[in-house]
């Protein structure tokens, strides 16, 4: 592939540090239940994130887990979003 420069030490690429990737964390079962109760919905009504998603793999989350995403927001400064690990 690419010729390696000896002077530069090769960094390990960590996608969580990329500017486009917001903070992802898995909710504990209690937090998840509380969330579902707060919005009065079942899991399948939340936005999805595929089990094959790179971030899900990193967090080692399982189907049904709810992931809390803290986005940097142009309008609110900071915004929280939730996705449930769901689908194929």
């Amino acid at each position: 592939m690419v010729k390696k420069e000896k002077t530069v030490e090769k960094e390990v690429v960590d996608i969580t540090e990329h500017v486009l990737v917001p903070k992802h964390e898995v909710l504990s079962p209690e937090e998840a239940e509380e969330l579902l109760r707060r919005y009065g919905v079942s899991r399948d009504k939340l936005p999805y994130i595929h089990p094959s998603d790179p971030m899900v793999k990193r967090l080692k989350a399982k189907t049904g887990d709810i992931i809390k995403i803290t986005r940097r927001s142009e309008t609110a400064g900071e915004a929280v979003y939730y996705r449930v690990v769901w689908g194929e």
Partner: protein
Amino acid sequence: MSSAASVAGIRFGILSPDLIRKMSVAEIISPDTYDEDGLPIPTSVMDPRLGTLEPGQRCKTCGNTYLGCPGHFGRIELPVPVIHVGFAKTIYELLKSTCRSCGRILLPEDECKKYHAELERLRANNLPFKNLIYKIKQKAMNTQVCPHCGEKQLKLELEKPTSFSEMSESGSTKLNPSTVRARLERIPDEDLVLLDINPQTSRPEWMVLTVLPVPPVYVRPSITLESGYRSEDDLTHKLVDILRVTQRLRENIRAGSPSPVIEELSDLLQYHVTTYFNNEAVGVVPAKHRSGRILKTLAQRLKGKEGRFRLNLSGKRVDFSARTVISPDPNIRVNEVGVPLEVAMQLTVAERVTAWNLEKMRMLVRNGSDKYPGAKYIIRPDGKRVRLKFVANLEELATALEPGYVVERHLQDGDIVLFNRQPSLHRMSIMAHYVRVLPYKTLRLNPAVCTPYNADFDGDEMNLHVPQSEEAQTEARELLVVENNIISPRYGAPIIGVIRDFLTSLYLLTRDETKLTKSELAMLLAAIKYKGPIPPPAVKDPEPMWTGKQVFSLLLPKDFNHITKSSFTNTEVVVKNGQLISGVIDKGSVGVEKANSILHRLARDYGPDVARQFLDNVVRLANTFIELKGFSFAVDDLYVPDQIHSDIEQIFKKSENEFSKLLAQYQSGEVEIPPGMTAEQAFEADVLKILSEARDSAGKLIRSRISQNSSAFIMAKTGARGTMLNLDQMIAVVGQQSVRRERVHRGYRRRVLSFFKQDDLSPRARGFVYNSFVSGLDPLEFFFHAVGGRDGLVDTAVRTQQSGYMQRRLINALESLYIDYDGTVRTADEGRIIQFAYGEDGVDPAKSDHGKAVTVSNIVNSVLATTPSGKPATQEYIEQKLQQASQRLNKKILEELRAELGKTNPPREAVDKIVEEVVSKYNASLAEPGDAVGVVTAQSIGEPGTQLTLRTFHFAGVGEQSILKGLPRLIEIVDARRTPTTPIMYIPLTPEYASNLAKARKLAKQIQHTTIGDLISEMLVNYKRGTLEVQLDAKSLEEHGVTKRDIEKALKGVEAEYDEEKRVISVKLDEEGLMDIARVRERISSIKVKGIRRIKKATVFKEKDEYVIRTEGSNLREVMEVPGVDWRRVKTNDIYEIAEVFGIEAARNAIVEEAKAVLEDQGLDVDIRHLLLLADMMTVSGSVKQIGRHGVVKLKSSVLARAAYEISVQTLLEAAARGEVDSLKGNVERILIGREIQVGTGMVTLLMSHEKGE
């Protein structure tokens, strides 16, 4: 809703033969329709038992007249089974995945069990199971031997449209429909479930018809022509065709005809039935009418824009509406509409008679329908309608009137109506106005509302609708009325404002030199119906005079303080305590699309009514003043001293010299070519640059010397009409005419017109117009101008189409989104959450200051202006206050507040007031529950689509990169195309590289994909040595930064040697190679020397104070691995790639960024919240979904919603096979069946059940 039972849902399925027979009231046999007397023959398709079309007759089945009879189905018993075209593919799949002998699915028992369980689980959890079904089908179809009975399966083929044949060793045999049907019958119910077929509603054998339903006559009415001939509907024709064949077939079967005859007739029957269902099926010759017109059969009736769904179900014709030409009237209010008397006498409003309006209603009835104001109908309490037109004694009726009657009276002043101009691109295209009945024949509107309707008066027509119910009228008054729509939800600034002459007038009025005499002042004050004290005159001697600013100030609230910019001089406009202190009033302060203008502040801080009244008065004032003062435009207004014209000539002389120099360089091949361009392109770019520079400096000259009092100048500067560029073109030079953004070059061979020498590249020969519009174009220039004009026209036409379709798709994808009571954005049909807070902060852009919920500095300034100054509050106090507010404000506003408070050091009192004010303003700007935010988003992105440029392979910088921009790129984003047309990467570097150009360049070369082919100067075959000698180009080698080592490395595994001295690669040719040198060449050329796959070009740019690399082509994963690349900031415009590498959340961010970049680049103002919602909708499913039939719309659970959008017929057939149920929750479905939608005011329901009393 209604007290009677309402439709809970619609189940789709296939009619079984039994059901068809049960439904049928008559068996239809006779192919002849009428006897000699012209009476319908019983048992024909016009059988009277199916219903009657004649007004006098009664239906033979139900006894009703044609008004009451619902119509009844008949049936045709088919002598041989016939395959339903729509299901041919389903049948094919079923046959292939089941055993030809035992009918079981071709999967072992244990696997069946496993899949059943899996399917059960997915269905229970509401998970998508399409993929599983697909897997099952694939597996079953690929099984050769039946695991149940051991039967070997034969290869099956579907010959479009409806014939199946089986391939065995002995050859192929055609399966006739009876065989197909027999096989389908054998498939057990449990196995069908695995194949996504609901056996309860849709047994597969029902897909092969044995009996055909005949629709009632109402579905296919016949028309009697003037000549007395009857003309039958296309469906009737088709049914007759079917009957004819049926009859012949039956006779032949009875007579025991040979099977080829029967088979041929069966095929004919199959053809007729096929075309009866779908006359556009693949592989069938469409059935034609005698005249050669192609028949419109069942599928065609549903399909497309002209089909049932879109023409009659999604949109319906309405009563109580009017349409005519519009004209302006600055003397009516902005929220009024002038309705011609004639129209007012046709449109009616139902008004209930009460004790309080009894006398008035009696008067209306007495006047009758021909005298205004009157009434057209009365409805008695028993429900009987009386038409007043034919009542002899109106007086008697009037006296009989009492509370409980309803009078349908003429439209009167003050009634509320909806006013609309197509295309209705955003919600401000339909607004509510109050009626003003006026003489003459046009609908009148205040010019200030032209902008939202996008109306002008060159012949435009508009529509008017009268809401009938109290609920509808109230809703119109409260939500749709003009003053509540002053601020556009697209960009959070006024969209209704002063335009054209009124801006000119206001400028003339408010500039410093304007002084008004007492009588002039009186006229103006009378125009605005001013009541109050007259301000003291600004000048007292020799006679009292007032300034225009004083007059304007009378329109402002007394406590109004604001500072904004004027567009005329770009200086400050200062309003202090309701007095215009300095600056002029023009587009910048009262015009449209200007955030934080005087108008905007009035609408936000004083409410819609004050803003509306202000607008009414401003328009009237401006109108009166300009009438008083007079304003005209003539050639004199374009005067500049003659000196200027000769200066301009000098400029062009100079540019011509430059051109000659450039031409000489080009012809001698000396012109410098930037990478990636041909010499011609480079030359053209340079010519354009020279010419536009010349044009610009000519323009500059004009602008500096034109009189400030020139009408043209005033209009351009105030924003009334025209731009400075128009002035340049009129006075100085018209400039370059272009076709597709290039100089005009098409026409004759090597020249545009025969007046030029061939290959004349001069500006004149390629469409540069040296004259100005005033000096007049010569014939050649005129021609070029026409060419350029035509190109513009074509561009506009294409663009409207494209953006219109994009808008339709956006609307369809987002239509069901609304804000729920808890602030989340959900879909109306399934209740799925799309966003947890609308736009992430819950703020409605239509209640914002250009996207910001509150402008903290405004509040601080106004509070400080009103509170007495005192000891500044302590830091701790401020912090404590902020802490309290932090629960109720979002982070961003909190920070802004903190910064403002820190800057101004207000006293305690003021701090309290400020914080309180900020919180209350913030709460006031939150979007309300029920708001249909999806539609607003779709409109906000779709509406400006027409303003986007089309066909822009834009060259950024000096022709380094070509990037797709404008409308095509926006469509590409919402389309979620797999790869962008122009993939681009943006690669920032680590500090070491970012600061060092040489290092950055080196890195770029390392990234850029280079093959040997890129380096070759020539290739020769040396037959003596049996080698292919590849000569490499020194320049290319250096350009690509290729070293000897690179080449040697690349040549590993190839029998070749590299001679660095001569830069020659000698490739050994074996016998095979000698025979096919072309192939060897190809192979050698494609050997990769260095770089990253797909990165076609990498160029270093200086950005701010660092060097970055931009590339053509994208390969995120590999680029990130390159040392020296700052991978934390690397970006690509390939959204799928981002989704793959970083996940769905990053992809969502990328969609927002890309869409934002397109709109910003085009200078369009769209609130970020709309883009956020779009991106969230596109990514809810966990993967990037297209806005359109394959993406977001396909995810909809409702059959009807999908059918109403695109591909109606196929959607319905699939739904039938799967036995889907439409629960009619979404907006589209509800509109189709005529129910209220559950969004906005329709969302309100009772939470408490009255039955259980809970």
